[in-house]
């Protein structure tokens, strides 16, 4: 939609009054790696990993499962559930840190794979906050009139960035994709994004620069206790802020889907947030591991499929991770 301006001035766009999630879809790496198998590589135990993280098993991609194939599979499900054809997508946003090709972007490759026509397509690098970064941007695009329907995909193959000799991180990471379609709505259904970064802490989680000729693979390095403290204090406050800016009291919330980084982080956030017992809390990490940008949409799909959550309920989502970056918002479930 465009708004005609007085003669001599630029015409600007104007979109829908509100935006909402129209559909969600996910794809999990098909290889199940349980803690006992993990402990063939690292000096640890099933009990230790469960106690520190809540993870029982994680999903890894096989050789045939790539960021592109998983992103496309998740996107097809999201589009199908939204009742939209691929050529009705105006913009594709992929959040990933594991598309090992500087250009073209993974979003362009997904648009080609799905036969989307000629949408705007680009990747964002916001690690575990990528899904909420993407939804925040998509909501703005829909309301500004820059796009009608936006595909937001979080996809990772973190197993390929995992240092299997690092007993403090190797058991955490996993592979999968989650996608949503964001489109116009008659009613408010996506709260304001609360987002930002902690630029001074960029070394807390990182991969080393991938220089030409460097034989070292850029595995993920993480100072776990610093991340834990940040997530359980500053990020818990940001989660509360998401509710406040959306005008919601904790008692009005139905579902809490934090980035699935560690069940202990979720436990601590719940203590800080003092959410009512009635709120459904995602524990998708237990059988999935930490899939970074994919974790929130995968957890959302799982709750909807199991019936633990239903369409129309309000969900608080918040992502946080390497950057450090964070983003969250309140969403009405599709």
């Amino acid at each position, binding site marked *: 939609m465009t708004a005609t301006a007085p003669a001599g001035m630029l015409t600007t766009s104007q979109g829908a009054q509100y935006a909402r999630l129209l559909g969600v879809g996910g794809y999990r790496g098909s290889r199940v790696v349980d803690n006992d198998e993990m402990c063939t590589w690292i000096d640890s135990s099933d009990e230790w990993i469960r*106690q*520190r993280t809540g993870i029982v098993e994680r999903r890894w991609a096989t050789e045939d499962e790539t960021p592109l194939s998983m992103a496309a599979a998740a996107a097809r499900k999201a589009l199908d559930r939204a009742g939209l054809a691929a050529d009705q997508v105006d913009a594709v946003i992929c959040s990933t840190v594991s598309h090992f090709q500087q250009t073209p972007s993974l979003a362009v490759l997904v648009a080609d794979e799905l036969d989307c026509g000629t949408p705007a397509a680009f990747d964002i690098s916001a690690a575990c906050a990528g899904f909420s970064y993407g939804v925040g941007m998509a909501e703005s695009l829909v309301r500004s009139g820059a796009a009608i329907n936006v595909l937001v995909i979080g996809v990772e193959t973190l197993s390929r960035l995992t240092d299997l000799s690092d007993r403090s991180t190797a058991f955490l990471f996993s592979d999968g994709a989650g996608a949503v379609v964001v489109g116009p709505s008659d009613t408010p259904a996506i709260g304001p994004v609360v987002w930002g970064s902690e630029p001074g802490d960029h070394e807390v989680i990182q991969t080393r620069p991938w220089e030409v000729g460097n034989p070292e693979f850029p595995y993920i390095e993480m100072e776990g*206790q610093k991340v*834990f*403290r940040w997530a*359980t*204090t500053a990020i818990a406050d940001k989660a509360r802020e998401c509710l406040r800016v959306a005008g919601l009291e904790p008692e009005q919330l139905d579902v809490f889907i934090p980035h699935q980084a560690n069940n*202990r982080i979720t436990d*601590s956030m719940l*203590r800080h947030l003092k959410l009512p017992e009635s709120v459904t809390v995602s524990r998708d990490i237990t059988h999935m591991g930490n899939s970074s940008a994919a974790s929130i949409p995968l957890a959302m799909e799982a709750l909807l499929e199991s019936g633990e959550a239903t369409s129309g309920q309000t969900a608080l989502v918040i992502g946080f991770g390497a950057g450090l970056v964070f983003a969250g918002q309140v969403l009405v479930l599709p």
Partner: protein
Amino acid sequence: MASTDEIRADLAEIVNDVAGVAVEDVQLDKSFTDDLDVDSLSMVEIIYACEEKFGVSIPDEDAKNLKTVGDAVAFIERAQA
């Protein structure tokens, strides 16, 4: 100024809340890890909760030296003085 036992009692409430340890078990001679089975992630939460509760700053380099409940209470007493 809070007494040693008042600080211990408040700390015991925090340890109970974070790690589920019985309040009466949190005594000055107890080691967080060896006696109370508090792991490293719970220690991070306990340290932060202490900073909030007692209005003190506990830098990482000091936190790692707080092996027993008595170490933590003594640190908090000094920091509050």
